[in-house]
């Protein structure tokens, strides 16, 4: 289990806390989504949790042992996939994995197996500098899996991937969860979080503003909405309406009466809509 207690962090050149009294727990084998817009403090929290940033105030416990007390063996237990691909561009995909695997004290997976898993088998011997952004992202993801980590930190793992590859990566993440790997997923993509996470925390301006399962968040904050597509002056228009809201209810009735409706779908409020409702900010 991971327990983050009253975490604070301030950067040298800033007066405000980048992370302000953040606390949460992650159970073993859980996917914990850490959601928020750019600059909200997501990566700062992940960097403190992985030891990349100094623990200034608060505590982080891994199975009741404080991060401060953990030696280098801690890094045998974790895997980190970074948002910005940090690879050795002069090394091939295979070499990037092979040499990184050599730094661990625990058995590691074969680079060929992982490259195949993330769809980079054909490009294994090409230098990483020739990879597209998506390929680099997949290689960084594969690198995080080398030591078969018990805890996996994923920072925007699906960013820049085409849908079919993203599907493959999601399946790998789901399989890791089935194998009891604890996953800390940092993203601003609410659809990814909704699909994968057991629990999500919304972070805004360094503070956690909501923390629960996606379903409970929807029950607590969401209202059922209706997506209506209709023709107006030969153009297709789209509107989201909340029938529980009286004005939206009247608008919906008016649209139905106009006979211009092309499609109409009822839907739950998305996590993104809930985030906007809570923080007043958009995620992008």
């Amino acid at each position, binding site marked *: 289990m991971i327990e983050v207690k009253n975490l604070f962090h301030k950067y040298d050149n800033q007066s405000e806390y980048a992370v302000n009294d953040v606390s949460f727990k992650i159970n073993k084998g859980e996917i914990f989504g850490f959601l928020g817009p750019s600059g909200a403090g997501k990566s700062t929290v992940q960097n403190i949790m992985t030891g990349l940033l100094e623990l200034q105030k608060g505590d982080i416990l891994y199975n009741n042992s404080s991060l401060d007390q953990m030696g280098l063996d801690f890094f045998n237990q974790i895997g980190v996939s*970074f948002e910005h691909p940090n690879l050795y561009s*002069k090394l091939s995909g295979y070499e990037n994995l092979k*040499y990184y695997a050599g730094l661990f004290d625990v058995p590691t997976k074969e680079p060929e197996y992982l490259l195949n898993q993330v769809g980079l088998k054909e490009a294994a011997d090409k230098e990483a500098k020739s990879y597209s952004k998506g390929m680099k992202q997949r290689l960084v993801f594969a690198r995080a899996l080398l030591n078969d980590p018990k805890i996996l930190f994923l920072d925007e793992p699906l960013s820049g991937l085409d849908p079919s590859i993203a599907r493959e990566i999601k399946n790998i993440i789901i399989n890791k969860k089935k194998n009891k790997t604890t996953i800390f997923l940092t993203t601003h993509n609410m659809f990814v979080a909704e699909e994968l996470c057991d629990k999500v925390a919304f972070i805004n301006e360094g503070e956690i503003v909501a923390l629960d399962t996606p379903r409970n968040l929807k029950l607590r904050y969401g209202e059922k909405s209706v997506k209506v597509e209709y023709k107006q002056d030969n153009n297709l228009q789209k509107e989201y309406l909340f029938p529980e809201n009286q004005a939206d209810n009247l608008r919906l009735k008016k649209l139905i009466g106009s006979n211009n409706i092309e499609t109409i779908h009822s839907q739950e409020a998305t996590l993104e809509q809930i985030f906007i409702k809570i923080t007043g900010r958009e995620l992008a």
Partner: protein
Amino acid sequence: MLNKYLNLTKQNLTILMRNNFHLIVIGLAVIMVILVNFVIPGQVKITPKELFFDNTNNNIVQDYLLKNDVQKDRFVDSEKKLYERLNQNSNTLGVIIDGNKDNTSFTIIGQGNENDEAFNLLSAAMANLIDRIKNNQNENINIQYLRPQQPNIPFNQKLIPIIIFTEVILLGFLLVAVIVFQEKEEGGIKAFRVSPANTIVYILSKVSANLILAYLYLLIVLLFTLGFNVNYLNIFVLTTLGSILMTLLGLSISVFFKNLEEFIFVALIVLSILALPMMTYLTPSFSPDFFRFLPSYSVLFGLRELLFTSGKNSILFNLNMLLVLEGIGMFIIATWSVNRKLMKEGK
């Protein structure tokens, strides 16, 4: 730890080779071998060249010097031609010899930029020359040696310690910085920091990769200039100590800069200071005490002692010990610098 170190060293070597650094080193070594063997002469006259107009009866001075292998082009047959030659080459001194064997006089013609020492030396040499012509040499001058007399070292070979020294200093100092900046730019160091490898492994792997390139250069230069007439083991020990020290110095400084452009100005200052002992090497009479504490001094003069031994056995041991002590100190500094600037961020 050994496996991690070997693995990381292999990674660093692969990156160095992908950057074609090995080809640069081999190319540089080949150029140096060509310079030593075919371009730089074995004998170089450092003082101005003397041109003679022998106006004595029977040209007694010219005859004597020609018999003693002085080149024919050093003589002219008229005063006018002497002045013409002096005007053509500013690194020449003219000597007009008048009179006869028993009463010889000299007129020395300078360019105007010579010091008194040059004139005094030439005057003494001409007086001695006449004594020899007259078989009237001063037998009361004795020469003694503190150590066995060493063979005269050809000028081109005398430059080999500088050639090795320059590469060890440059390679150790600059190449490690290039790799550090490449890692900073690509972010590879961030991935390293979430692995169970430590700073010592990181530093040692960088040092080792650089050392292998230094050995490559050293082997090519030594094999093709001095062959097997040198003590390779001792030279490798000294070069190893020097290369380790310079790599640690380069690493300690480069981690404080964002990129190569920012670093290069500081690098030039450091390299200029490290190059100072070359002044003492080329002009032995200029030897300020503080030069001896520069690590480059130990490398340069250690190499000279190994390649062209002076018989002072203790010199080498002292220089090696100094390098070891400086290396230990620099390792501590490098570990602190790397820990502080590369292994932690946003403190």
